[in-house]
């Protein structure tokens, strides 16, 4: 394999237009934060039953995807697949950017974001949430070191060690994120140990889909060649991860159905819960899983770049639907105060009529979520403009000398 030449991207008109657009989204998000903080959280769709809302869906999606965006770098450093090594710097950069985007949303949605220093200095080591604060900060630091070893020639010899450390750390990180929900035995919609490994697979899938979209679009906009060899490998990998998530999701619901006490919540999520069954069946299963798998494997579309792009978008859409159902659906299903007995209605705060708690996300919540995504993309755009993150060419003959011309 030839030596890879890394270069910055040009900062032309379209680049600054992109930055301006992302900046506008971030600005709107900050206005939304000001509105929510100034008027109070009651202006959002969240309430005393649905306490985590749309900002948390965005944040958890980005945090999970951040870990998965490191896939490509890990495959190069840990599993020794040389073809992926030229992509490793972008992979690590995107991992950091997505995590910062997700954490920004999470912090700005706190009731008291001004007390972030307390969260950093008062740890309850029994709390998986506290562990996650350490894991997220550690991930950013570790991946930054990993990036340094990749981009600084003198440090190249440490890349493998740093890659291993980052790989192990990201597995623990996503386990921690899944455990936030898995450990919650009070809520029947959560309380499943399988959520920890499921979140790892989710991270692989969502992170790789985002990575591929960023990679393909960057190369398209900057007129850099990207060959079929690398894309074919990436799309096959994505398909495996999508199938992996499907396996875990199906297993989770089947195992839940094994326990009689969980029949109610599974029926709620998959059949009776209004928006939640729609998001699961149409959003996740059909559009987010089966359709992308068909696009990625069907002979008529498997080689099409448009189909691969569409599949990536669909995986993101499906992933977002899945995270929404996990986070919001788990709270919308009422607490079982009297296990085994039916609460027909309650007048003060319980579910009335429909049988579950309602949640209507507001514009401000969406704006904050989009701002998190924009922060991640803007960071990535500025970084690839300033530093040499991207290979000048990913043409087949560059990445694989044995590729047919």
């Amino acid at each position, binding site marked *: 394999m030839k030596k890879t030449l890394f270069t910055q991207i040009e900062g032309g008109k379209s680049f600054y237009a992109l930055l301006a657009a992302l900046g506008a989204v971030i600005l709107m998000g900050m206005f939304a934060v000001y509105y929510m903080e100034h008027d109070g959280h009651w202006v959002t769709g969240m309430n005393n039953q649905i306490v985590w809302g749309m900002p948390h869906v965005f944040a958890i999606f980005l945090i999970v995807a951040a870990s998965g965006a490191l896939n490509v770098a890990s495959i190069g450093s840990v599993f020794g697949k040389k073809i992926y090594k030229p992509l490793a710097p972008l992979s690590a950069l995107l991992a950091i950017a997505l995590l910062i985007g997700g954490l920004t949303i999470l912090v700005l949605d706190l009731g008291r974001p001004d007390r972030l220093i307390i969260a950093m200095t008062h740890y309850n080591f029994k709390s998986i949430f506290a562990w996650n604060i350490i894991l997220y900060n550690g991930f950013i630091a570790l991946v930054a070191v990993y990036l340094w070893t990749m981009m600084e020639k003198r440090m190249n010899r440490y890349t493998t060690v740093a890659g291993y450390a980052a790989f192990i750390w990201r597995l623990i990180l996503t386990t921690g994120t899944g455990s936030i929900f898995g450990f919650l035995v*009070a809520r029947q919609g959560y309380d499943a140990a399988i959520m920890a490994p499921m979140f790892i697979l989710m991270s692989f899938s969502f992170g790789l889909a985002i990575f591929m979209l960023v990679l393909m679009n960057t190369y398209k906009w900057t007129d850099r060649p990207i060959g079929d060899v690398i894309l074919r490998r990436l799309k096959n990998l994505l398909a495996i991860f999508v199938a992996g998530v499907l396996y875990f999701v199906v297993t989770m619901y089947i195992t839940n159905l094994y326990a009689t006490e969980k029949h109610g919540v599974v029926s709620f999520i998959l059949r009776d819960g209004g928006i939640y069954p729609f998001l699961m069946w149409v959003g996740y299963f059909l559009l987010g899983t089966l359709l992308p798998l068909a696009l990625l494997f069907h002979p008529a579309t498997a080689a099409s770049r448009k189909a691969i792009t569409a599949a990536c978008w669909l995986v993101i859409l499906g992933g977002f639907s899945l995270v929404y159902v996990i986070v919001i659906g788990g709270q919308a299903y009422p607490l079982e105060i*009297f296990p085994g*007995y039916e609460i027909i209605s309650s007048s003060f705060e319980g579910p009335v009529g429909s049988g579950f708690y309602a949640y209507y996300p507001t514009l401000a919540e969406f704006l904050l979520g989009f701002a998190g995504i924009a922060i991640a993309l803007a960071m990535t755009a500025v970084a690839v403009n300033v530093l040499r993150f991207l290979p000048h060419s990913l043409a087949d003959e560059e990445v694989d000398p044995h590729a047919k011309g």
Partner: protein
Amino acid sequence: MAKWGMVIDLDKCTGCQACTTACAMENNTLPGESWQDVLYYHEGSYPSAQMKWLPRPCMQCENPSCVHVCPTRATYKDMDAGGIVFVDWNKCIGCKYCMIACPYGVRFYADEKPLLEPDLRDIFPGQKGQLWSPPYQNPEEDWTRGIGVQPKGVVSKCTFCHHKVSKAPPGTPDLDEDNPALKEYVPACVRTCAPKARYFGDLDNPDSNVNRLIGDKHGVRLKDSSGNKPQVYYLGAGAGVPAFQPKPRS
């Protein structure tokens, strides 16, 4: 040190919600932020339909889920204060993880949607970081224990009226509202309960009335299977839950 516990006799409770009102007045909570809630249920169908209710304070669990999940230790169980679970409003970052983790749904985000119009927060705007400033304010304030008018962006909960019970003479087995010497130390919900359905005392004292009631009348704890071990016990025919309609078998 005492381990404070509450006993609620569901056979006596009339569902009048005097406890809810007294709690709100005592602790300056906003409408809807019912630390001492009464849940209502319909049972059966016409013509044999019945209404049931269940008063639901914080259970002050011996093994509280909320304490385990709080990332900053803002929520803590104070064994020197009778085992009451508190929220330190100076440390709470408003992540709301405790609200999701609580099996009983008895924690509240202070900054909630107004239940009534006009919004009382607009009529009595908060001062010095308070969420609102009601015309009558309980002079007792201890943010490290979540006592006083709540600040913005934190979680609040029942404190078993710690500001009252903590002043009771040491070694008191029961805080009985009928005892003139003790009535000022009785939690607001217990003191105001018209049918005397509530009892408050030391669960660690074998001579306390609450212990006797729990033993004699087979007191049960809500969702005991959760392992949280509440310090609130229920008595009466409805307490064992058979009063609620079983789910029909499919």
